[in-house]
């Protein structure tokens, strides 16, 4: 990992069109400004991981529901709601 030290207000440029500016430090929190091309997704890592894992689980788990998918809604609204 490349490690750099920056002062507040300074920035890092990645490639030619991504710029990360360090704006503010409050206790243990750092505010970062990101300039990136439109269409390039920027995610908080933990949120990205949560959603990716959820997607992977969904793709894996949907096989189990194969026979029942058309019935699941009915189970939820009817039979499934009785308990």
């Amino acid at each position, binding site marked *: 990992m490349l490690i750099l030290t920056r002062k507040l207000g300074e920035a890092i440029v990645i490639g030619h069109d991504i710029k990360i500016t360090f704006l503010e430090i409050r206790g243990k929190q750092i505010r970062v400004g990101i300039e990136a091309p*439109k*269409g390039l*997704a920027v*995610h908080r890592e933990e*949120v*990205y991981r*949560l*959603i*990716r*894992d*959820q*997607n*992977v*689980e*969904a*793709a894996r*788990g*949907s*096989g*189990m*529901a*194969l*026979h029942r*998918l*058309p019935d*699941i*809604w*009915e*189970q*939820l*609204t009817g039979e*499934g*709601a009785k308990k």
Partner: protein
Amino acid sequence: MNINTARFGEVPVDESKVITMAGPILGFEQLDRFILIVPDEKKPFWWLQSVDDGAIAFVVANPFAVKPDYEPEIPGDVAQALGIERPEEAVVLCIVNIRKDPLKVTLNLRAPLVINPVTKRGGQIVLEDHAQPIQFDVTGVPKTAPQSSIPVLPPGDPIRMLSVPSPL
């Protein structure tokens, strides 16, 4: 074009109905072409089948059917990239996680799929709204959403694929 799928066997694909996920489904960045398979129009659970990998399919749901007050805010640059000018033009679907024994069904409201039904371009967006749950439990919810009020895609919607072989 026909594709071989793990769940539906060989499926004929009308290329004009293929959805391109320009903003990828996170974790599946290498797969960008999908078709929507609607087993039963009256039920809000459908399949999003990968065209590129027959083994990959997601169950997706119309979130408004289970949460009528759901209001995902589509970021301006995403709307622009997908060519969506008005929110009602977009088709919004959420990926469903189904766990069995006991049955637990959740929708990912935090990261919906937004699709422009005209250009058939879409993407998974991550909402800034932290209050939107990644696992919205619908197991007990649908009683509040009578079936008659289930909104579906507008009639004749171009991304719908109706000639669906019944699931194996």
